[in-house]
């Protein structure tokens, strides 16, 4: 499998070079059959590992027809899973949006001690396994955890309840917005902000009228990715959920439950909902990428800021 991945990368590279080269085949160093072999293997790889599984989800979901498909989605446990997933995303995404923008703003526009440490800290959730992310909250808020006794005495439920699920989700989606904005804001530099300051704008005005419009598309892109992960997270949420049906099951957990109950068509129906969400996300992402590329081209045709 490793072999075909390398091939896929190679062929993508040769694809990128091809249009730029003059005179077509004379400029490419590889013989035509090598090109086709590489393109073919890349396509076969993509079809086999990405496209077929995606189609399979929808085929399996509709195997028993549209009736059972919709029945699986309006069933009370499914509805509560959908609700919980939406609530979780509705809390996690805005919080990470606020955090991501502030962190990126601080890191890109100011110099301070411990900056590198902060960047590393932001990356932490990417490098830590989601299961560990869940377990740390159990260790902190669990009955035998650091705050366990206090929480129990005051009847506050964190893990095995909605707050725990939200916390775990916030943890795993932490880097998405910040990571998207930092390189963009660093590339843009702080000249425009400095100009605004010289012209007498206050901090809020600078942020609202200068910085925000510049990072708008990058921000939307980050939010979309953050949202996709927030709704699809399984590992971390599974650890803190307690798996109480109709109460602490999110959509991904609900899929697993249905699958384990031999309820395959319902499991795939629910899975197709998540797959659909992923497709919508990808669509939005492409639109945002396309729009921002166009804007950047229009703004600065000579210098390619994003690359």
């Amino acid at each position, binding site marked *: 499998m490793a072999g075909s991945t390398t091939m896929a990368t190679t062929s993508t590279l040769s694809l990128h070079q091809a249009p730029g080269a003059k005179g077509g085949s004379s400029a490419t160093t590889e013989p035509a059959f090598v090109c086709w072999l590489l393109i073919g293997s890349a396509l076969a790889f993509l079809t086999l590992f990405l496209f077929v599984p995606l189609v399979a989800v929808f085929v399996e979901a509709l195997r028993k027809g549209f009736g059972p498909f919709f029945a699986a989605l309006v069933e009370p446990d499914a509805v509560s899973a959908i609700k919980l997933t939406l*609530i979780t995303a509705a809390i996690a995404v805005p919080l990470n949006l606020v955090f991501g923008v502030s962190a990126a703003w601080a890191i890109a526009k100011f110099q301070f001690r411990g900056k590198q440490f902060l960047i590393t800290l932001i990356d932490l959730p990417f490098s830590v396994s989601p299961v560990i992310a869940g377990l740390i909250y159990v260790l902190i808020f669990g009955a035998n955890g650091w705050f366990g006794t206090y929480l129990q005495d005051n009847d506050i439920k964190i893990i095995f*309840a909605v707050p725990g699920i939200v916390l775990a989700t916030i943890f795993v989606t932490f880097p998405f917005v910040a990571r998207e904005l930092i390189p963009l804001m660093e590339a843009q530099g702080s000249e425009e902000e400095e100009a605004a300051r010289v012209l007498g704008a206050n901090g809020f005005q600078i942020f609202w009228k200068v910085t925000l419009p510049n990072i708008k598309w990058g921000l939307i892109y980050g939010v979309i990715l953050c949202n996709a992960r927030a709704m699809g997270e399984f590992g971390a949420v599974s650890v803190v959920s307690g798996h109480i049906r109709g109460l602490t099951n999110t959509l991904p957990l609900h899929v697993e439950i249905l699958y384990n109950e*031999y309820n395959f068509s319902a499991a795939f129906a629910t899975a197709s909902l998540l797959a659909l969400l992923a497709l919508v996300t990808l669509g939005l992402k492409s639109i945002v990428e396309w729009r921002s590329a166009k804007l950047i081209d229009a703004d600065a045709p000579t210098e390619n800021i994003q690359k």
Partner: protein
Amino acid sequence: MVRKLAFSLLAAGTFGIAGTATAADYTLLNVSYDPTRELYQDVNTRFIKQWEAKNPGDKLTIRQSHGGSGKQARSVIDGLEADVVTLALGYDIDAIAERGLLSKDYQKKLPNNASPYVSTIVFLVRKGNPKNIKDWNDLIKPGVAVITPNPKTSGGARWNYLAAWGYVLKNGGNEAQAKEFIGKLFKNVPILDTGARGSTTTFVERGQGDVLLAWENEAYLAVKELGPEKFEIVTPSISILAEPPVAVVDKVVDKRGTRKIAQAYLEYLYTPEGQELAFKHYYRPALTEKDPFLATRNKNTFTKVKLFSIDEVFGGWSKVQKAHFGDGGIFDQIYEKK
């Protein structure tokens, strides 16, 4: 503004959970193991109907949580507020009792060692039994692929392992022979899933292996759900009496004021109606001697099999756990040798 929305949603989420405890408004949480989902869905519906009829004005909701038995016990220890636990084996409830959440003599508080239903370990084979598997000694033949979950993580798998061990002892073998037998058996296991349901799916859905060691109820359910034309059940000459106990979690019910209803819920499992439901989901009802009708049906459905109990052969769970499944225990020794 976004933040305000977020906080109000968070508040709504929390209240949704906390706000159910008004005067006649009860929720129970039953934390159970993997294969009991269907059983408790039925039990809950019927019990709620009965309770609300007897106590007009009450509104009862029963929540279920399922997963590997050991993992579920861990969650209860970590603060999952279960009013009752209905787990795969006594050891897991013992672990909860050790943390002081319920009293250690819970198995004396309800009839039949607090096990309203029992089960055993049987073999599920492909239709026509192509490898001709009849009894435990057929499992160690070369070329027979056996599917069982990992005894380190799965309650069901521990019962599988102990049933095979007991088979050797009951046939006049000694401990060394039993160890050798288990060693050979696990050489024939290509995949160790973490839970009973995972193994069942591996065997029936993915078509792996020649024989699945399974809970009797799990085997019957698989045959019913996935087609009698594809599988058949083989009952060995002797097997283990698997007693999955149930218990009220004292600390939780006292805190939440649900003791009366939790107790009634577990007692319901011993009523003729509860026993009937257990039977319907292919458990062997524990109190058949009091109910001749159920006893007859029991006899007609389940193949008669000689059953030995864990206390009789192994001297109880705590001993078994330490000797066989602890770190460096017999299972580790066998599996490392492989």
